[in-house]
């Protein structure tokens, strides 16, 4: 830490000022819309979001890690079979395909996956050999901790106890996540590994071409096996070296508890509600329009629908008030005689 602070001071001294230093790091400095707003802190404007932070990002990573782990343990089929045997439950949609066959995940599917993955994984990793027992324990703990954290974060009201539970689940997750490190490949790492593999293959082919003496088929096969093993080792080394969990959404989880302490429940700020409203507010209107100048028709359709709903609510409210009779056909209210 001290070393990092020293390095930072050195870098700052080298740069003409803080602006240049930040520019060198790739931070764009300019005037934005929040500058002129009183009592608005741009750092507080970003809110934790279940849909994009947990369901569509962390859970997506999680399923990739789990798939990699199951592939290594040769239990993918058991996972698919356990997934197919999930019984129905209210508000829970069962995936019609096996998990490996799903190519694109929606937020709702990811949420449902989070609700059942730990139990499905326990069922998948049942009856381990004595050598596998320790290997199976960590992933279960890690996945359960992440799911528990996400569930606890969805509480509408919190106590100091629930917040401390949230923090302890997060700590457990960070403590046990290393078991998935080898399966946490970023796209850049995969590309780099493929490039390295291709270069090695070229190099080995060139070396083979330079050797003039004849080989038997058995020798040729043995050498090919050796080369394949070498390539695979190099690839594993690179992936081990390059893999990491340092991405922004993983880091952002540490702010969830403090956010609840400062601003209240996280569910209030979730974009899930806004995205769900797209269906009523935009998509339905678009389907009912003639697709020609659709924006105007969407607005008019939703405006009309909204006004009608408000009217119905008013009638319902008035019908409960004593002394007011609601005329059945017109919807007009009149005082009781």
């Amino acid at each position, binding site marked *: 830490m001290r070393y990092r602070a020293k390095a930072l001071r050195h870098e700052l001294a080298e740069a003409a000022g803080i602006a240049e230093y930040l520019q060198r790091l790739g931070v764009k400095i300019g005037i934005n819309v929040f500058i002129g707003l009183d009592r608005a802190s741009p750092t507080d404007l970003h809110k934790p979001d279940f849909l994009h932070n947990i369901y569509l990002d962390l859970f997506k990573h999680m399923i990739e890690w789990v798939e990699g782990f199951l592939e290594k343990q040769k239990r993918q089929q058991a996972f698919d079979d356990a997934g197919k045997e999930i*019984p129905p439950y209210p508000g829970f949609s069962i995936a019609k395909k096996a998990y490996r066959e799903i190519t694109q995940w929606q937020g709702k599917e990811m949420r449902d996956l989070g*609700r059942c993955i*730990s139990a499905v994984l*326990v069922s998948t990793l049942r009856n381990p050999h004595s050598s596998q027992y320790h290997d199976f324990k960590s992933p279960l703990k890690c996945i359960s901790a992440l799911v528990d954290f996400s569930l606890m974060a969805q509480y509408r*009201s919190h106590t100091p106890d629930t917040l401390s539970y949230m923090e302890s689940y997060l700590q457990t997750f960070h403590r046990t996540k290393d078991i998935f490190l080898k399966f946490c490949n970023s796209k850049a790492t995969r590309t780099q590994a493929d490039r390295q593999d291709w270069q090695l293959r070229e190099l080995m082919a060139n070396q083979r071409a330079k050797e003039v003496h004849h080989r038997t088929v058995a020798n040729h096969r043995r050498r090919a096996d050796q080369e394949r093993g070498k390539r695979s080792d190099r690839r594993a080394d690179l992936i081990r070296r390059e893999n990491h969990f340092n991405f922004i959404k993983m880091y952002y989880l540490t702010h969830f508890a403090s956010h609840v302490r400062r601003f209240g429940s996280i569910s209030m700020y979730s974009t899930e509600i806004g995205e769900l409203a797209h269906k009523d507010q935009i998509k339905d209107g678009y389907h009912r329009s003639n697709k020609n100048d659709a924006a105007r028709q969407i607005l008019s359709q939703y405006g009309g629908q909204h006004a009608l709903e408000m009217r119905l609510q008013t009638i319902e409210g008035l019908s409960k008030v004593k002394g007011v009779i609601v005329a059945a056909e017109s919807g007009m209210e009149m005082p009781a005689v």
Partner: protein
Amino acid sequence: MQEILRFTRQTAADDRWLPADPTELGLLPVEGFAQLEIPVADFQETDRFQIHRARCTGTKAFCNGGPRNDWVWVQTGGEAKYGDLRGRVVARLLALFKIRNILSEAEAVHRLAFVCILNLVNSGRLHIASGHIPLGRRVNRRDMRIVSIGAVIAQAQVIPSGERQWIVNHRIDLRTFNEIY
């Protein structure tokens, strides 16, 4: 019939709704149902309820598929019982029926559920390594019971884990997650 008799015997003498005599019991009209609507209070919302529709088609097909007999939570004891399950057990609905006691003056109607209760493997405590509660099924038929539908408190989700073994998925919703830990 035996289960109904047992159910009748289990109820206290004052609350005995049904006749204890098997021949009398056999005369009572019974009507079967395929769905039980269970109102379940929303988590952290006292005035809102979710309706859990537990299906029980017996051996009949459900929606052109196989038979559907849902899993439910049955409250059978106080909170101190069954470890982390807090007095509840997981059971599979086998039949839902209404029995009218025409032999009594009041002609009282009783709504009952025939269930198969899963056995607790680890006294209902969470398995430390997996963090889930394992359940099993007895080989004998002593796990079949008749309970009042009032004892069925919510739908449950259990995931098969090998031969005659299941795991309670307590992370299925916030209410269950909050109650079982």
